[in-house]
């Protein structure tokens, strides 16, 4: 849910430059935007299926399985956050943190992934979490329906790449998001993959406008991916975030912020401001 102020300053520069790029070439955006919806539809389908398995484990009291499924289920939400968080109430119900609520972990409306995460890791229990499991399951189904009915706003799709990297900068580098489970690296990778997906879909249009810019984006994505790869485990998962060395945390900040800043100019570059 959270984003950083860092990239905002740079957004302003892009916004203040009026763009009149609305011409026939704007129809070139139809293919990547529809391909992005196809990708999001696919991801939210996986989110629905895997959330069912995750919440079933919670309801059965199978703590080990629930803990195993928690990070791999969430990645499908994290990858599509630019669209998912357009639905304010659902985003709050599915992905809010305790500090979004006046009464913190005790708030009745602190629900969703992080509420269950709190139960599984901080309290080591699923008892009393059956209702939250059902609620989460219903909410991702509602999200799937809302996404199916949504005509994706082009500027939100293109702006989504920056939004994801801002999310990384604000919540993953600090490790605040998955504070009980420390499974932040799954989300981290997923945010990066989601941003890279958008860049890849719009690559022909970006290259046409600014080849050097496209190359710089690729280079920074590669740097971030290489650091994350160091923490991959044999089973295809990730180490917990507390294992990430200080030097690597610092090494991530540079390319992450540069990506967030660069990507915040994408809307302007593609004539969507």
């Amino acid at each position: 849910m959270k984003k950083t102020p860092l990239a905002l300053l740079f957004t302003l520069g892009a916004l203040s430059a009026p763009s009149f790029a609305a011409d026939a070439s704007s129809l070139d955006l139809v293919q990547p935007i529809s391909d992005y919806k196809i990708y999001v539809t696919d991801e939210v389908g996986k989110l629905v299926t895997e959330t069912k398995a995750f919440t079933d484990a919670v309801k059965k009291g199978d703590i080990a399985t629930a803990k195993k499924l928690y990070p791999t289920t969430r990645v499908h939400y994290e990858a599509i956050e630019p669209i998912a968080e357009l639905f304010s109430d659902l985003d709050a119900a599915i992905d809010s943190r305790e500090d979004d609520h006046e009464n913190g972990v005790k708030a009745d409306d602190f629900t969703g992934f992080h509420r269950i995460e709190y139960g599984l890791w901080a309290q080591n229990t699923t008892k009393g979490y059956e209702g939250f499991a059902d609620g989460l399951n219903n909410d991702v189904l509602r999200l799937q329906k809302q996404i199916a009915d949504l005509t994706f706003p082009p500027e939100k799709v293109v702006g989504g790449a920056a939004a994801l990297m801002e999310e990384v900068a604000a919540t993953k580098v600090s490790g605040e998001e998955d504070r009980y489970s420390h499974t932040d690296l799954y989300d981290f990778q997923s945010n990066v993959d989601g941003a890279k997906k958008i860049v890849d879909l719009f690559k022909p249009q970006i290259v046409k406008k600014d080849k050097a810019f496209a190359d710089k984006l690729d280079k920074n994505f590669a740097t971030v991916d290489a650091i994350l790869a160091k923490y991959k485990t044999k089973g295809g998962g990730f180490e917990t975030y507390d294992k990430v060395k200080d030097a690597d945390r610092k090494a991530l900040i540079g390319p992450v912020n540069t990506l967030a800043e660069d990507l915040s100019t994408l809307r302007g570059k593609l004539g969507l401001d």
Partner: protein
Amino acid sequence: MSNPTQQPPRLLRAAVAGSVILMIAAGGLFYYASQVASEKRKANAGNEITVTIHPKSCEPNALTLPAGRASFRIVNASDRAVEWEILDGVLVVEERENITPGMSQLINANLEPGDYAITCGLLSNPRGTLKVTPTAESDARAKARPAMTAFIGPLSEYRVYLNTQGGALVQAVDELAAAIQAGDLAQARALYAAARVPYQRLAPAAQRFAQLNNAVDARADYYEKREQDPAFTGFHRLEYGLFAQNSTDGLAPVAQQLQADVATLKAQLLAQPIPPDQLVNIVARNLHTLADTRYNGEQERYSHLDLSGFAANLEGTGKVIDLLRPLLAKSAAKLLPQIDTAQQKLAGRLAGLREGDTYKPYDQVNDEQRKAIASDARALADTLDGIDQALGLSAL
């Protein structure tokens, strides 16, 4: 594993409390500074609105401003990192998240006239209101024809629709081919009916590919020797075998070819862009062919499944109407209710011919009913023909 919910040591708590106080103080200072700055900006450009997030409320929490570009300076005077969002129904229009305590952030928005809600800090805080009033400029913009960029969303969504229906068609034809391969006549007939539905939903777009569409949907009359012509293939060759000859004999290669052809069709539907004027033209043309020829039952002459095809055509048309609805509501306010009325009339006519979860066989639909369907389809096609002019599609 460390447990983050343990109580922090007292010294740390004191330090945190101290820094919170400092942050609040800084927030106050910032607030003051930003007020001064905002007064200056107001004198120059106008339109920057300062909103302060307090722990349990926002100030102001009810805003009224003119349509157009607006800047909101959001000052976080609470003690937590919070967000501020402008909502249109359930959808976020603009937002800023993770505003640090004591800091402020600027949100730029280009707002259309209307009533919006505002979220303010903690989720339990009361929501505010934002009323955006029309201006001469926004009125003029509303009356003006939409720009090319306004069609990116609808055209993208239509391509997603073609992908979904194309995928359903490929899968349905695969299943139909398997039933034919197995020689299961009853199952093959049922699956023929099922496969026609996604085809008829995307038929308006498929008809752009003349040759490929002929391979999939040509009737026997297009061939010199009609049903006996070896070149007669596609859906209707299968229909002829399954419903007129009551057999799956010899149909396997035809089904196999149809599998390949619908896979190519799906790929082509995704590969070939549709310009805005074509989006409307193709559905209008599809309805005109219904009104001019297909109403007589020629398309599904062996199976008499015409009505479910017409209903699927209408669904495909309804998709396009819904995608253009926001643009029509703005720029063609008189035309839109006419379109809706015509669409409902045809939908009602078809619904009246339903039998359970299927439709009446078309050979049981009398001449008068058929002519009424044709007339309703023509009326809808005619109103759709008005969209081009109303939205200025050809001039884009």
